[in-house]
């Protein structure tokens, strides 16, 4: 082969000795394609940075409001290396995680109960349909009235906001369990409790995981909103404080770190989902 362009390396040659697992394409081809795509992605990001610097350079925006990307990167490094930013991130995660855990437990229990007890579902459906269109953040003032400012209120808001996706997808998951599985359980003389534990829950687990991933993003938004609004310690209040003190570079640094946090949270839950359902549609698409 004289010119090993990308196209000639490929496709699906029966004689190609080594393949990338699961694709049937040669390792060379997959590595090359990925390298080229990563380079393109980096170039795309570089264009965004260049645009940022251009806007700054041309003075379209007050340069004090738009610090140089280099300064922001340095502020990120300083802030994370034992700075206040690191502890703010830790505090946000520290309230986000238990809040989400509460939502996961309560949402899973509620979802299973609603799916298995149709009478209960019918009875409280009006309540659910009534609460559903109300954005949870609108209830922050109500929670402030009832619980006051503090960690307790923040945890409640995080859990309340993120319970819904867990609840509804668990319910859908349980309702979607193949009735033949249940019949198998009865034939094997499993008691109802064992049937739920050993058949319903494992079968509904992928749906639960998908709901939990949606919930994790919502929980983060609510955690930060509550922090901004009440001054509860965390990224939200940190961003507001540095902005009010005119520390613009620190503000931008914190925002980009928040983005990374959001990205990582999603990546972690995506990995959990993949582990739970390697065949699932999320695995194929993204």
């Amino acid at each position, binding site marked *: *082969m004289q*010119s090993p*362009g990308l*196209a*000639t390396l490929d*496709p699906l040659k029966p004689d190609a000795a080594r393949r990338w697992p699961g694709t049937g394409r040669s390792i060379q081809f997959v590595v090359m394609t990925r390298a080229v795509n990563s380079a393109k992605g980096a170039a795309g990001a570089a264009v965004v940075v260049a645009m940022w610097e251009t806007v700054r350079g041309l003075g379209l925006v007050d340069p004090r409001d738009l610090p140089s990307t280099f300064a922001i990167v340095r502020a990120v490094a300083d802030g994370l290396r034992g700075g206040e930013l690191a502890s703010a991130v830790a505090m946000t995660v520290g309230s986000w995680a238990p809040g989400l855990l509460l939502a996961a437990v309560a949402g899973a229990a509620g979802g299973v109960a609603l799916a298995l007890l149709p009478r209960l579902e019918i009875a409280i459906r009006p309540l659910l349909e009534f609460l559903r269109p109300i954005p949870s953040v609108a209830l922050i003032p109500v929670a402030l009235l009832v619980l006051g400012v503090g960690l307790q209120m923040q945890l409640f808001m995080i859990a309340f906001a993120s319970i819904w996706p867990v609840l509804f997808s668990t319910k859908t998951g349980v309702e979607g369990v193949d009735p033949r599985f249940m019949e198998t359980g009865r034939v094997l003389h499993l008691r109802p409790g064992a049937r739920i534990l050993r058949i319903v829950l494992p079968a509904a687990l992928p749906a639960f995981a998908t709901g939990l991933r949606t919930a994790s993003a919502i929980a983060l938004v609510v955690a930060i909103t509550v922090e901004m609004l009440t001054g509860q310690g965390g990224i939200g209040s940190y961003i507001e404080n540095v902005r009010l003190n005119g520390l613009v570079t620190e503000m931008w640094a914190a925002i980009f770190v928040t983005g990374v946090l959001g990205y990582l949270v999603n990546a972690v839950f995506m990995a959990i989902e993949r582990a739970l359902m390697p065949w699932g549609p999320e695995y194929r698409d993204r």
Partner: protein
Amino acid sequence: MADSTAVTKPILAVQNLSKSFTTGGPRILNGMTFHQKPGQFVAVVGPSGCGKTTLLRCIAALMQPDEGEVLHRGQHFDDPPSWLSVVFQDYNRSLFPWLSVRQNVAFGLRGVSARDPQIMAALSAVNLEHAADLYPWQLSGGMQQRCALARSIVVKPKLLLLDEPFASVDAQTRIDLQDMVMGICRSMQLSTLLVTHDIDEAVFMADKVVVLSTRPARVVEEIAIDLPHPRDQLVTKETPEFLRLRHHVYTLVRQQAQKLPRETQTER
């Protein structure tokens, strides 16, 4: 032959056409050459999987060949010329599901409303006036293909390409569609290129049959079909001449199919 080309310039000239899917990869079409005179009905047959659809896409200028060229009235085109139209193989994938029959037919006409008399004329040519306001999902397979046919003749093309247009309909519908297409093409004096794997259909409908080899495809033989018009499904198909031609084409195609290497046959 020089005198005849001077009188009638071919509407379509395929010259030494070669094409492969990937640059440097195995060829699908290999040095293919044939001509089509204006008003002629040409059928292209060949063993299944020999690259007929690739050929049609090259002819329609939806794809550019690697080597050789496709000339329409002596000219090269980078995009499909306006006087060419195509009926695609999968009728249920070539109609726009969000447009009614009438709107589907009007799709290629610029600045013409879906209520224009041209649309109704095209629809009545395919006996579909009664379904003008239905949507594709409400039509049977044969009706969908008639709608696609109406859409391609409404633009008054000079050259009509048909890619296995009757492949996925039942036998009776297929026969009706063959008669309908032949009638339309003759009355509009269309040059028609039909790609098919059905030998009966090719011999019955065409003035010339081009037989392709197995992959990489080239032209094995061009056979003139001098059966008289109008052709009839019963009468024509019982004439000794039809049977002789059918036998000849069939033998050629079968020879090609047997040449297929074993592994290529089992691949699909």
